[in-house]
């Protein structure tokens, strides 16, 4: 009995974990199945033969690589822009006193919860008026609407975790406010900045609605709308190809999960839940 209990617990937990992970396993399995095996009834749970032809076709015959490049440019630029602004902004919100600071913090929190569909109509009009529609730049601006409040909120939490006396010590030791920021606060904030950058990157990488509305040219489409258009345009839905695209699209995420997962969990503690 003493021995059985942990075994049962393990079997039970791992069954659930497998059930949760199954769609992902199925995605990979499907992407590796040859076309002939795909439409078999009932499906083969373990593929009889493995092929990489879908990946090859995805990269050589579809605009997937272009979408991928667009997404990289979009997510990277958004992240750099937002993290740079957010770091300075969070420093200001946490370590300075001026009129209206509290109200501003409240506004950040409010926008962090704002639905995108409220902003999408005026943003669409704005981009059309400025002649920016169908550009990656319009998407970068649009992504700022959710990424900046998010980054600010996260970085604010991280900044609050840095003891105020560290900065005070640097000031007494002869640093200016900016000098203290560079020498002492920034190195301490770095893990928080990395965490925020990863979150921002993932948010931007995964975003769909703005891309759907603001961009309808295939040349600047990011992965989300690009891959979806592959689903719609194909007469006969090629599930293997789509699953291969899904796996490829999740690559950055897999990399982050494999090497930088602790940053994701710390970001959760700081922003997501503590508020």
């Amino acid at each position: 009995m003493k021995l059985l209990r942990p075994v049962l617990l393990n079997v039970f937990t791992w069954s659930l974990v497998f059930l949760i992970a199954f769609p992902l396993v199925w995605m990979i399995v499907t992407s590796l199945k040859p076309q002939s095996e795909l439409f078999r009834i009932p499906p083969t749970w373990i593929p009889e033969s493995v092929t990489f032809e879908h990946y090859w076709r995805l990269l050589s015959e579809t605009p997937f690589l272009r979408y991928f490049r667009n997404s990289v440019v979009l997510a990277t630029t958004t992240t750099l822009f937002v993290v740079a602004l957010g770091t300075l902004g969070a420093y200001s919100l946490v370590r300075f006193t001026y009129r209206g600071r509290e109200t501003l913090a409240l506004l950040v929190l409010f926008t962090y919860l704002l639905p995108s569909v409220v902003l999408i109509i005026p943003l669409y009009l704005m981009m059309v008026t400025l002649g920016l529609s169908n550009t990656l730049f319009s998407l970068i601006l649009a992504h700022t609407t959710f990424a900046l409040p998010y980054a600010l909120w996260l970085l604010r939490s991280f900044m609050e975790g840095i003891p105020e006396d560290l900065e005070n010590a640097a000031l007494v030791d002869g640093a200016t406010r900016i000098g203290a920021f560079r020498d002492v606060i920034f190195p301490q904030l770095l893990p928080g900045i990395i965490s925020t950058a990863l979150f921002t990157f993932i948010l931007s990488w995964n975003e769909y609605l703005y891309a759907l509305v603001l961009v309808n040219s295939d040349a600047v489409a990011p992965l989300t709308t690009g891959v979806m258009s592959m689903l719609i345009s194909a007469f006969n839905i090629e599930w293997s190809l789509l699953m291969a695209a899904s796996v490829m699209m999740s690559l950055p995420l897999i990399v982050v999960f494999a090497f930088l997962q602790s940053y994701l969990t710390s970001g959760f503690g700081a922003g997501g839940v503590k508020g």
Partner: protein
Amino acid sequence: MTAIATDPPRSAVSSPLERAYARLGVLLIAPTILVFTLVIVYPLLAAIYLSVFSIYTPTLQGGFVGADNYVELLTGKAFWNSLRVTLIWTVGTLTLQIVAGVGLALLLHQNIWFRSLARSLVLFPYFLSTVVAVLVWKWLFNDLYGALNHGLMQLGIIDMPLDWLGSMPNAMIGVILVGAWKYFPFVVIAVLARLQTIPENLYEAARIDGAGPIARFWDITLPQLRSVLTVIILLRAIWDFKEFDLLYLLTGGGPVTSTQTLSLLVYQEAFGLNQMGQAAAYSVGMMLVMLVFMVLYIRQTKEKA
């Protein structure tokens, strides 16, 4: 609003150093304020402004119609139907997320084999792109070749393949299920983090007092999780309420409008029916409903701070 009141009153003779610091602080936040104004505050006000116009999307032409759009919102069926759908979706998926999230967090808090791998696998769906999640689930839901139907048939739970997304109530159950699968890891992470901070001696004390595992859960774990659960529920309620991608990509709001939440209604009105003014009015209405949750969440956050 209390924030302004608690702001310390500036004395007339503050020191130049203090003023220089304040100036630097404003300078550092200035770019953020600028971007905020441009991409958030201005569009927000513009949305309210647009809601009293009738605008045809392709030409962007139209005229002032006063409160007509709001009269339509209040008297027409679309808004109320979507509000009802949104509430069903939010309550359904949120309940599943919380139950699954707390349950798995409790399991993953135990000493199981390869615990960190199990945790990673459970967290993964949350970070996955909604597009990927939807593609995978559409494939799983596929009525002819879908793994879900065949799996259920092999297990003997159903006799015939089900039409998952094309008919009601299956479509609503389907989106609620996928929503729960995608977002419950958020609950897992938050609850796990909190579980790790519950002092072990609370459990030891309860054990000495003769409490069994179930009593310990109700008397210690749950009360300790209460505050974090409040925050999670509010936050997830807000996010589920405004969810667009998942529903739009999975069902497009269908069949007909039976899974058309408010976000989808706004999109459909603006870019499907090309009625931008009416869509803006719907979005303002939606925001007003959400404001209730937002105020609750903000108050909760401030209370903790």
